C-alpha cells in the first residue's frame, strides 16, 4: 500500500458553518494534522465546482484518503463517494466530519465551536488515514413488490407497479380492500361519490393479472434486504373457500347469528356470515369466528348445506402461512380515527346523538344503515352542531399536529345536512378553518353562503338538557360564552396512527416521528423513502392527508419501488464483518449475537490442523458490528468500523483536551 495521503476539505455551507466556525483557522489546523497532504476550504463543497476541486486535488496531489468537513454524512456521503469514484479512488476511502448539524448549528460561541470542530476534524482524519478500500458486491433483485394495506394508497400503488409490468402482492388485513375511503359518502370539495370513484380501481385490482390479492391476511415476519426480502404472510381463515364462493349470498339468510356491522362502525347489525359491503373485492363472504356458533362451540352449521353445489363453506378452515420473496415493499397501512372518549367533556359514548365524522359518513351514505337519511332516533335532526379539531391540535391528548382533512370534511358534511334537511340549523365551532387545497377555499365559501354558521371558539362541554343536547363554548370573536341547543353533535375527529402500527413497524424496522406516524427518510426530499432501503411509504401511515395527496404519494412510492425492480441489481452492504482466521479461536460468541444468522463456525485447516473458525456470509451481514464487540480475540472486525479505526478516534478526542 502506498503512503497515506489525506486531503481535507472544509465546507462553509454558505454561512451555515462559516458563521459559527472559523473555517480559515480550521483549515490551517487541518493542514498540520498527521498524513494530511492538503487542506482547503470552499463555500459549497457539494456543488459541482466543489466536487471538481476535490477530484482535481486527488489527481494533482495523488491523494488516497479524503475527509470532508461539512454537513451530516446522512446528507452528502453518497455525493462525495461518487466524486471519489469518478476521480479513480475507492469510494470508501472517504470520511465525513459533521461540523454542521453537530457543531455550527447547535453552538453560538465561535471560539468554542471552532475548538469543537477541530477535535471532530482531528478524530475524523485519524480514522480516515486508517480506512481501507472496500468492494461492493451486486446481487439480483427479485422483480416483485409487496404492498401492505389495501386502502386507496395501497390500491393505487399496487396498480401502478402492476401496470409497469411487475408482479405485486397486495396484503390487506380486512376481508375486502377499499379501506376508509370505501366508508365515505361524498368527497370534498367536488362532492364525488366516494364509492363510485373507488370501486372501478378496486375491480381493476381484482382483475389485474400482475396483482395477487391476499385479503384477510397479515404479515408475521420480514427478513432479507432490498432486492431480496422474504415476507411471511398469515392468511386468516375466512371459513369460505375464496376460489369457490361466487358471492351469491344464498347462505346469509340461514345464518342465525347477528353481530355489529364493522363496515357501518357498529351502527347496524349484520350476520356473522357476511360480505363487508356489496362491491367488496374479492366478492367473497367471510365468517366472523368471534360470533359464529360453530367456530365458538362446534354447533349450528346451518350455512354449510346451503352451499352444497359450490361447496364454498369450510368451517374447518385453518390459518395458512405463505412465504413470498419480493424486491421492494410499500407500507400503506393507513390510520385510525381519534377515539373521542378521550375527551369525555364532549359526551361521546354517553349520548347516542354525539357521533364522529366517520359515523356521520355512514349515516349519510346510501349504503349505510339508514340508506342515506340522516336520522337520529328515527327523527331528522333540526339543529346540528359540528365541532372541529377533536383529537387534533390538542396537546392535552398528545396530538399537536393538524389532521388536515377535518375542516374540509366538516364543511362537506354541513353541506350534506343542508342538502338533505334544508330547514336544519347548522353551527360549526372551529379554531381556524384551513382550506388550503385546490378548490377548498371556494367550497368553504359556498358552504358559508348556504347559511351554515361558523363560530370561532373552543367547545368546553356537551351536556343534556331535557330532550336536547347543549353545546357550551366560548365564542372567541365575540368574547362571550354561548350555548347552542342541538339534536345532533358531530365531532370532527382527527387521524391517529393505527392502534396495531407498532407490530408492523417492528417487523419492518421503521421509525416513527414524534407524532407516532411513520418517519420518512427526509421530510422534504425523500418523502416516500424510509431509512431502510427498499421500503417505501404511502398514504396516512406517514401522516394525515386527504385522498388526492394520498393517491399522489402512492404513485410516487410505486415509482420509487419500481426503480430497483427495473434496475435488476442492487449493491450489497460493503461495511460488513470479516474474520481473521488466524486470530479466531472458534468460541462462537459472534454466532450467538448475530441478529441475522450471518455467521457460522466452519471447520478450517490452520497450520495443518482442522479447527472451527467463524465465517461471515457477506450477503446476509447487514453491518451492525454486534459480533465485533462480542469477539474476545479481536478476530472479527467490521469494515470501516474496525477497532483500530474507532480507537484512533477515541485517542484523538482525548488528546485534543489535554
Amino acid at each position: 500500500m502506498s503512503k497515506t495521503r489525506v486531503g481535507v476539505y472544509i465546507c462553509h455551507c454558505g454561512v451555515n458553518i462559516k458563521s459559527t466556525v472559523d473555517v480559515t483557522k480550521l483549515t490551517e489546523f487541518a493542514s498540520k494534522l498527521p498524513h494530511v497532504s492538503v487542506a482547503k476550504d470552499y463555500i459549497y463543497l457539494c456543488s459541482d465546482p466543489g466536487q471538481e476541486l476535490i477530484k482535481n486535488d486527488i489527481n494533482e496531489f495523488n491523494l488516497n484518503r479524503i475527509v470532508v468537513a461539512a454537513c451530516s454524512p446522512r446528507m452528502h456521503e453518497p455525493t462525495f463517494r461518487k466524486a471519489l469514484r469518478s476521480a479513480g479512488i475507492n469510494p470508501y476511502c472517504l470520511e465525513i466530519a459533521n461540523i454542521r448539524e453537530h457543531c455550527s448549528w447547535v453552538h453560538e460561541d465561535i471560539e468554542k465551536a471552532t475548538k469543537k470542530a477541530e477535535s471532530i476534524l482531528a478524530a475524523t482524519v485519524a480514522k480516515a488515514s486508517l480506512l481501507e478500500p472496500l468492494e461492493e458486491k451486486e446481487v439480483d433483485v427479485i422483480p416483485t413488490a409487496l404492498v401492505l394495506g389495501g386502502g386507496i394508497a395501497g390500491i393505487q400503488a399496487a396498480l401502478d407497479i402492476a401496470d409497469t409490468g411487475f408482479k405485486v402482492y397486495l396484503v390487506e388485513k380486512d376481508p375486502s380492500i377499499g379501506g376508509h375511503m370505501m366508508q365515505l359518502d361524498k368527497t370534498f370539495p367536488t362532492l364525488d361519490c366516494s364509492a363510485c370513484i373507488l370501486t372501478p380501481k378496486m375491480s381493476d385490482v381484482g382483475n389485474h393479472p400482475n396483482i395477487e390479492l391476499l385479503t384477510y391476511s397479515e404479515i408475521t415476519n420480514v427478513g432479507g434486504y432490498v432486492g431480496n426480502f422474504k415476507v411471511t404472510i398469515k392468511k386468516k381463515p375466512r371459513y369460505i373457500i375464496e376460489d369457490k364462493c361466487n358471492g351469491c349470498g344464498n347462505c346469509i339468510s340461514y345464518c342465525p347469528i347477528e353481530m355489529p356491522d364493522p363496515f357501518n362502525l357498529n351502527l347496524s347489525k349484520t350476520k356473522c356470515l357476511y360480505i363487508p359491503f356489496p362491491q367488496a373485492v374479492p366478492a367473497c363472504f367471510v365468517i366472523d369466528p368471534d360470533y359464529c356458533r360453530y367456530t365458538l362451540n362446534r354447533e349450528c352449521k346451518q350455512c354449510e348445506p346451503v352451499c352444497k353445489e359450490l361447496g364454498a363453506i369450510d368451517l374447518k378452515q385453518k390459518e395458512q402461512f405463505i412465504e413470498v420473496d419480493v424486491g421492494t415493499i410499500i407500507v400503506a397501512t393507513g390510520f385510525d380515527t381519534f377515539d373521542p372518549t378521550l375527551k369525555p367533556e364532549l359526551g361521546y359514548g354517553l349520548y347516542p346523538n354525539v357521533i364522529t365524522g366517520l359515523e356521520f359518513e355512514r349515516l349519510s351514505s346510501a349504503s349505510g344503515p339508514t340508506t342515506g337519511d340522516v336520522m337520529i332516533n328515527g327523527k331528522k335532526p333540526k339543529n346540528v352542531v359540528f365541532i372541529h379539531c377533536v383529537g387534533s391540535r390538542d396537546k392535552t391528548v398528545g396530538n399537536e399536529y393538524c389532521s388536515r382533512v377535518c375542516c374540509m370534511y366538516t364543511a362537506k358534511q354541513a353541506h350534506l345536512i343542508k342538502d338533505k334537511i334544508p330547514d336544519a340549523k347548522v353551527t360549526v365551532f372551529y379554531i381556524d378553518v384551513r382550506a388550503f387545497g385546490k378548490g377548498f377555499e371556494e367550497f368553504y365559501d359556498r358552504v358559508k353562503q348556504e347559511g351554515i354558521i361558523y363560530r370561532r371558539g373552543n367547545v368546553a362541554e356537551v351536556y343534556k338538557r331535557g330532550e336536547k343536547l347543549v353545546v357550551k363554548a366560548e365564542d372567541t370573536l365575540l368574547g362571550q360564552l354561548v350555548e347552542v341547543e342541538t339534536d345532533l353533535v358531530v365531532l370532527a375527529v382527527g387521524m391517529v396512527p393505527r392502534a396495531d402500527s407498532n407490530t408492523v413497524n417492528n417487523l419492518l424496522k421503521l421509525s416513527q416521528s414524534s407524532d407516532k406516524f411513520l418517519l420518512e427518510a427526509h421530510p422534504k426530499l425523500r418523502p416516500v423513502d424510509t431509512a431502510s432501503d427498499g421500503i417505501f411509504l404511502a398514504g396516512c401511515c406517514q401522516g394525515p392527508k386527504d385522498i388526492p395527496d394520498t393517491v399522489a404519494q402512492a404513485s410516487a412510492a410505486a415509482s420509487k419501488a419500481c426503480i430497483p425492480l427495473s434496475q435488476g441489481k442492487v449493491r450489497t452492504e460493503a461495511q460488513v464483518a470479516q474474520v481473521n482466521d488466524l486470530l479466531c479461536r472458534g468460541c462462537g460468541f459472534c454466532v450467538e449475537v448475530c441478529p441475522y444468522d450471518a455467521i457460522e463456525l466452519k471447520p478450517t485447516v490452520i497450520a495443518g490442523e482442522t479447527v472451527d473458525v467463524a465465517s461471515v456470509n457477506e450477503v446476509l451481514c447487514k453491518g451492525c458490528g454486534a459480533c465485533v464487540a462480542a469477539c474476545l480475540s479481536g478476530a472479527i472486525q467490521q469494515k470501516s468500523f474496525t477497532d483500530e479505526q474507532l480507537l484512533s478516534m477515541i485517542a484523538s478526542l482525548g488528546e485534543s483536551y489535554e
Partner: protein
Amino acid sequence: MSEFEPNIVAFLCNWCSYAGADLTGTTRTHYPPTVKVIRVMCTGRVNPLFVLQALRQGADGVLISGCHPGECHYLKGNFLARRRFLLMKNLLEYIGINPSRIRMSWVSASEGKKFADVITEVTEDIKKLGPLKSFKREIL
C-alpha cells in the same frame, strides 16, 4: 481559572440517535459544546474497551445512545449494548471510577429536542463530578 468544561465522547447509532442529533442541528436547538460524537452503525458495536480507552485517554465522561428498546434497526443491538453497559458500570465501580461518568440513553431519529436535553444533562452531571484525573494517573 476558567470554568471546567468536560470532554465527553458519545457513541451514537447511525439510525436513531445520530439522526436525532442531526435533527437537533436542523432545528437549531442549542446545547453545550462538550460532546464529540463517534458514529457507529449500532450501539451493539460499542466495545467495552472503547469506554475504558476513552476515559483513560482524556474523556471525563462517555455517552452511549441508541434506538429505543424494541426499535433497534438491527433487531437487538441496543439490548446487547444495554447488557454490556450495566457490566461496564459494575467494572468502573470496582476499579474506583464513579459509574455516573458513563451514561446510556435512547434517542430516536425524531427526538431532536431530547438529544439536546440529554447532552445538557450529561454535561451538568459530569461538571459536578469534575475532571477525571485519577484513572489516567493510576494506569499510566
